[in-house]
């Protein structure tokens, strides 16, 4: 699928402030679900926020204890509910808090990727990244890159306005957008 130059079919975003920002104004704002492990990637996101590293705010973060927990059902559910992209992240190999959790994550991810490909969802909508707690800059970089990539792919074929509402997370928990809000 090529870039969709037409204006976003999405309803008005709740975060109007963020939406009016320059970076977000280009084509459409994708909805990205980020699964992050408690020990590395989530802390990495925190580092990005604390260090005030600018990155695009169009993602919702779901913290899990270990990336090994992220089974195909989680990712597929996100796509079913209209996510435009899903990022799975965990500790670097050898750094897993549970020793081998991220190896499980790879197995699960490969399985998920195969199903996603069969379904005809573009491969670019799903990504696996290892981000440690110290890599705030890398987190911001990955998010920016992935957001741009998904933006080029356009809205997910499964995205409908009512489904999007279902993946809306409460305002109080959207602390991951702090890079932009700070």
């Amino acid at each position, binding site marked *: 699928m090529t870039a969709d130059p037409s204006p976003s079919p999405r309803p008005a975003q709740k975060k109007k402030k963020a939406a009016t920002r320059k970076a977000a104004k280009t084509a459409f704002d994708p909805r990205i679900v980020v699964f992050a492990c408690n020990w590395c990637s989530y802390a990495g996101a925190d580092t990005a926020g604390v260090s005030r590293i600018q990155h695009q705010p169009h993602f919702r973060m779901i913290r899990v204890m270990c990336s090994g927990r992220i*089974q*195909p*059902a*989680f990712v*597929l*559910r996100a*796509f*079913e509910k209209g996510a435009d992209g899903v990022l799975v992240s965990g500790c670097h190999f050898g750094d897993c808090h549970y020793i081998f959790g991220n190896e499980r994550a790879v197995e699960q991810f490969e*399985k998920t990727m*195969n*199903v996603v*490909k*069969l*379904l*005809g*969802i573009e491969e670019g909508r799903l990504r696996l990244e290892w981000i440690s707690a110290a890599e705030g800059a890398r987190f911001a970089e990955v998010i920016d890159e992935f957001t741009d990539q998904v933006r080029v792919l356009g809205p997910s*074929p*499964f995205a*409908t306005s009512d489904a999007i509402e279902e993946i809306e997370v409460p305002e109080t928990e959207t602390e991951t957008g702090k890079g932009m809000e700070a």
Partner: protein
Amino acid sequence: MQQLVRDTNAWACYDCGKCTATCPVARVGGSLSPRRHVLSANLGEETDPGRDDTLFTCLTCGLCESRCPAEVSYTGLVRRLREAAFDAKIEPECPHGGALQSVMRMMAKGGTQQDRLGWLTEDLKTDPKEGEVFLWTGCTGYYDAFFPEFDMKTVEGTKATVRILNHLGITPVVSPEERCCGHDLLWNGDRQSFDALARHNVELVRSSEAWMVVTPCAECARTWKIDYEPYFEGRIPQVVHLTELLEERFDDLRLKANGMNRVTYQDPCRLCRHMGVHDAPRKVLEAIPGIELEEMKSNRHGAACCAGGTWGNCDRFAKRIQIDRLREARATEAEVLVTACPKCQIHFRCAMKDPNFGSEISIEMLDVAEVVASALV
């Protein structure tokens, strides 16, 4: 509720309790009681699925129905109660985290070009659009992608089906536009998504101008034959399971020995009880030179099922049923356990992974299509 009681013949129940006595889940200790559900329906009580979790432990295998002297449609009752539960936003705890349900719902939404025919090789003669016979392949490709750990290829059954059809001089329509038949969503109460899938699929077959739909999957066969009927306008194509077609075209089959000697056959619940097809696969298997079909202790209408149809439930009772069934299979001393539904294969293979029983219950499993295809001249 009154309508439901009339539709499912529940009012005819005379409380004999045969249903609960034969229920495979109740037999291994589950608290599911078909009789209680029928009774409370008759009393006009709304089954509250939020509190009565046994509603989702029913395998809908239909064993109770086949024994019921009053012909109460318990599976029909369960399905309607589940639909009501779904409407009340009570969803069962699906195995595999509901991943397969997500896949089906995405197919129901549509909008993507699936890559589902990766298995189709050059030597298989098919037509992507039009033809006389439509081969409904089912979701075997997805299952193989989802269960790499079982070291199995359910898609081989689908390939074998094409080979058999080619052998019979049929070039089937195999469409990349095919979507899940919706069987599992329907049985888990999601009528809306099923509706979308049914409309799409019926239209697909209608536009192919096929007069017959053949499928190697027992669940697809049931759905096409029974649940899709109201969706057809005008001419309804003949729907057959592969084994039914083989029985019909028995004289055209030229079979040779394929090296198998002793096999046993697992009746998929959809095929044997929901559709009443049990002799056709047996006839075909026995026709292969050298093959001797040894029946398991429970067979035909009384056969225990794989306890995993509809991706609706997987619990310790399901495991128990699978293990008991595999023991029966091993007791026949057969080399191969043949079945006619990909889900039987998946669930039995999963049970064989149990480290406590592994070697005691493991047995080679094949789809009936694979067995027949390997015996084609």
